[in-house]
């Protein structure tokens, strides 16, 4: 019986194809916009977060956090070696070392944001090269004068052409260093820069071998934080505690709460939150358009009930009950919304 009613409703709809299609259009547009918005939102989120994901889940940052920290509390290369040797369950460990230099190559003195990288750093931060090449091992070990440009920076400074093979001079407090651009790539730094409020439009972001960067910085460097990757995400907390313990032992500042552990996952959560707010907002807009489509169907059905009083009267005369009539309209509108939705 239900099948026959559906086919009866279908027949009535096919008898007025133009109106049926227009009515469905409201639903089609509504549902299409909801799907598109949610898909695009999710896609964009995945693209951003996927970048972190390969490393984010098990990497962490241990940094000096206290305002009362003295020179003595900051970290040295020896600290990094100690952590590497003493903390088990550690896959990679490196330092977070960045400095700002300048270059005159692009007109007025342009600030260059230099991140020092070594092998472990590249693994933790997932430095991926899209043009040119990675740093070679000799370059990393022996202070090679090469840099990798961050993608957006490369696009801005060398629009439409490859910067590979170009050289530029970096000036850091009077010290000059000529470097060659060997690659273009991106890492967690370029992703994070967007969230940390760095002025990407004015800064050049480049990666340089850590030893070269330390030389350029001059003297015995003191680092503010260590970055590390644990063996597995569930050992993250324990690993963080061990690192802090090693550092406190070496610096003799136990109990002063000098070092703080930040898990990349926490940064991710914040980024996620921002992305969600955005997606939700657009989803609400799309939902409203779906609601409008639904009201459209309701309106058309209401009009057609008024318009079709003759037909309703006839069907009643032929033995239809009020229920029969109600089901017919319900089936007609359900078919419209279902097909529109599909």
């Amino acid at each position: 019986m239900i099948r026959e009613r559906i086919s009866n409703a279908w027949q009535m709809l096919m008898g007025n194809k133009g109106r049926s299609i227009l009515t469905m259009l409201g639903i089609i547009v509504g549902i299409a916009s909801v799907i598109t918005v949610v898909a695009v939102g999710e896609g964009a989120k995945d693209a951003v977060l996927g970048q972190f994901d390969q490393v984010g889940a098990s990497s962490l940052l241990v940094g000096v956090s206290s305002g009362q920290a003295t020179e003595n509390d900051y970290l040295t290369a020896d600290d990094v070696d100690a952590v590497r040797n003493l903390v088990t369950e550690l896959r990679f460990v490196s330092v977070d070392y960045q400095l700002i230099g300048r270059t005159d190559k692009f007109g007025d003195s342009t600030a260059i944001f230099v991140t020092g990288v070594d092998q472990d750093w590249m693994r933790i931060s997932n430095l991926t090269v899209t043009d040119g090449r990675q740093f070679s091992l000799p370059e990393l070990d022996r202070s090679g004068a090469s840099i990798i440009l961050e993608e957006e920076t490369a696009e801005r400074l060398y629009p439409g052409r490859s910067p590979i093979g170009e050289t530029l001079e970096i000036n850091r407090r009077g010290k000059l260093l000529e470097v060659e651009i060997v690659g273009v790539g991106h890492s967690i730094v370029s992703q994070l820069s967007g969230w940390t409020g760095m002025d990407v439009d004015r800064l050049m972001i480049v990666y340089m071998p850590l030893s070269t960067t330390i030389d350029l910085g001059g003297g015995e460097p003191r680092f503010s934080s260590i970055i590390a990757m644990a063996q597995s995400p569930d050992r993250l907390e324990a690993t963080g505690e061990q690192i802090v313990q090693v550092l406190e032992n070496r610096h003799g500042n136990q109990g002063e709460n000098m070092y703080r552990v930040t898990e990349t996952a926490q940064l991710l959560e914040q980024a996620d939150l921002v992305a969600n707010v955005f997606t939700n907002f657009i989803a609400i807009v799309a939902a409203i358009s779906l609601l409008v489509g639904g009201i459209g169907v309701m309106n058309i059905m209401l009009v057609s009930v008024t318009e079709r009083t003759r037909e309703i009267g006839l069907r009643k005369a032929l033995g239809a009950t009020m229920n029969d009539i109600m089901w017919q309209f319900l089936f007609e509108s359900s078919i419209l919304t279902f097909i529109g939705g599909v």
Partner: protein
Amino acid sequence: MSNAWESEHILPEPVITMRDLHKFYRSASVEYHALRGIDLTINEGEFVSIMGPSGSGKTTLMNIIGLLDNLSSGYYELQGIDSSDLSDTSRAALRNRTIGFVFQSFNLLPQMNLIDNVALPMLYAGVSLRERRERAREALSHVELDRWSEHRPTEISGGQQQRVAVARAMVMRPSILLADEPTGNLDSKSAEAVLKLFHELHDLGVTVIIITHDINVAHHAERLIELFDGKVSNDSLQATHHEKKAGLS
């Protein structure tokens, strides 16, 4: 003539019984008294015309006979069943089984082909698809339109549409055929063909009730009921066209 009829059928069963039937229409400001005390009995197998000027209550009476409208006071019995006891569902079922409707404007559904239009009452009666198509085709061939069964109502003439409507009215084999101005929109030739169908059905024992204001149509019936101002003003037996023609030939 009526005596002859009665001699054949010793106890004619009343199919419609009305006692002091009133109908008011109320709107916010106006009350309209459409039927003012109708007393009427129509027996099984009668051929009745109901006449009257517009506003006399013809259509209201037809709606009440057809259980499409409720009465305001009085008593109405259809096929021995008191109409006041009926729920919407049992009204629909009784209407479906007992009465076939024919309307002035045919009222075929333009979205459906002829066979589906004819089969529609059986859909509401819960008849199986195969039997529906079989019986609808039979009914269409009875009105000589089975060639057109897959066509839409808009593709055939008004006279043909009204014959399809008669086929639809009769497909449930009801005991009463209720026609409201069935020839109002037809040329005289088509009207004759439709009335001929009515006579055929009457000969098969169907009670035929025609509501009309055309005296020529009314004269096809054996009994003429005239309405005026919501009351029966005249109720008489008459010699029909049919019989006159038969007498002449």
